[in-house]
């Protein structure tokens, strides 16, 4: 049997010892869209021991141009991304243990994996979840690799240790207006660029070559050919509640209320009912039947058509409203249907 990792072992910064460390590592990827999917492909092929994938979304046709793990059939079947990813990764490298978590990455979940993993790769599409990852990683003293892309632009920053600024120092206040996939689109080369930088950082960390990890934030645009590095040490805040002297890790505090969000890149709102209330697939089917609404049920979800909007109720009680961007509108429909 030929050695499938031969060329990685020949790469002198990894070598046989580095390869062994990759195979013993546990990596969590939060978000399995464009970045998460490219990162998962690279890391699984590289032979990472255990990969944990967390994502709340399922495959759609508009994902396929930039999300390398998924096929048209996955979109037709509306498979959860983490399930489709797990299947593909098994075909690619069956030695890798892949755990697929089909759920919203909330504070409790991210903390749980921060406690089990060597490093977290950011595959999310929003700042709120990154602040959760930031707090969980600082609390559990593991690094994470921020990556983001929009249009043809990529941004990557390794957050490792707490001597430099953390993600909350960078974003003490969430932006009111922000460029998103909805406003600016995104092309696959920007995705691959970002994920490649992120995975190289993962390799460096896991193989013990901390010195070569990026100290600066990398900002590049594959279309306009700009490439910049920015130091962030000067914005470390002594009173930062995540990495400062008194730490409260604000994003890890769970508040027991219904959570609603709207999604990057399309007219979709999400609602997670408050703790204590769990909607089941039976509830969904019941509501659809009682109101004479067309619906479809799979093992993963019930889909209900309602006045041009497509409502998806997942087995864990989470709801998506396709065709609705405004969370208030989604909330009002939620209460109208489910009381």
């Amino acid at each position, binding site marked *: 049997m030929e050695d499938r990792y031969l060329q990685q072992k020949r790469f002198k910064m990894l070598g046989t010892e580095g390869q062994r460390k990759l195979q013993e590592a546990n990596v969590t990827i939060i978000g399995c869209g464009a970045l998460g999917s490219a990162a998962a492909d690279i890391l699984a092929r590289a032979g990472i021991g255990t990969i944990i994938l967390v994502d709340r979304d399922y495959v759609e046709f508009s994902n396929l141009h930039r999300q390398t793990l998924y096929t048209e059939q996955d979109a037709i079947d509306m498979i959860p991304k983490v399930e489709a990813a797990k299947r593909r990764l098994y075909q690619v490298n069956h030695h890798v243990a892949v755990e697929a978590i089909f759920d919203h990455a909330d504070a409790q979940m991210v903390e749980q994996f921060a406690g089990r993993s060597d490093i977290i790769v950011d595959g999310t599409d929003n700042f709120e979840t990154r602040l959760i990852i930031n707090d969980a990683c600082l609390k559990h003293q593991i690094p994470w690799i921020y990556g983001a*892309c929009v249009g043809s632009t990529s941004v990557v920053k390794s957050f490792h240790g707490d001597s430099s600024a953390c993600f909350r120092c960078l974003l003490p206040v969430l932006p009111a207006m922000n460029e998103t996939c909805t406003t600016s689109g995104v092309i696959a080369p920007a995705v691959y660029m970002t994920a490649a930088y992120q995975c190289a950082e993962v390799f460096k960390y896991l193989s013990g070559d901390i010195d070569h990890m990026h100290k600066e934030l990398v900002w590049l645009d594959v279309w306009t050919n700009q490439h910049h590095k920015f130091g962030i040490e000067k914005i470390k805040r002594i009173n930062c509640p995540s990495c400062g002297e008194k730490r409260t890790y604000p994003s890890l505090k769970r508040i027991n209320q219904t959570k609603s969000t709207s999604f990057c890149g399309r007219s979709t709102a999400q609602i997670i009912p408050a703790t204590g209330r769990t909607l089941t697939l039976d509830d969904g089917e019941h509501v659809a039947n009682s109101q004479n609404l067309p619906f479809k049920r799979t093992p993963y979800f019930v889909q209900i058509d309602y006045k041009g909007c497509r409502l998806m109720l997942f087995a864990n009680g989470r709801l998506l409203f396709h065709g609705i961007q405004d969370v208030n509108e989604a909330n009002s429909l939620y209460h109208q249907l489910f009381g």
Partner: protein
Amino acid sequence: MIHLYYFAQMKELTKKKAETISWTAGTVAELIKWANETYPGFTDFSWHVAVNEEYVLETEPIYSGDSVAFIPPVSGG
């Protein structure tokens, strides 16, 4: 004189990639004030300020000859 560089949406708002303006001394906060007067809506956007390739706080001084970039944070993925 200082050199200003506008990234992403800031390039669209100011309709320029870069410019050089006269400057003797002052802080980042003062430059932001100038920017918002020159380009209405400037502070409605979110951005980081980098002076000579280092992200800085608003209290940072800017000296003649410095390069200052306005870089919006990126959230997509």
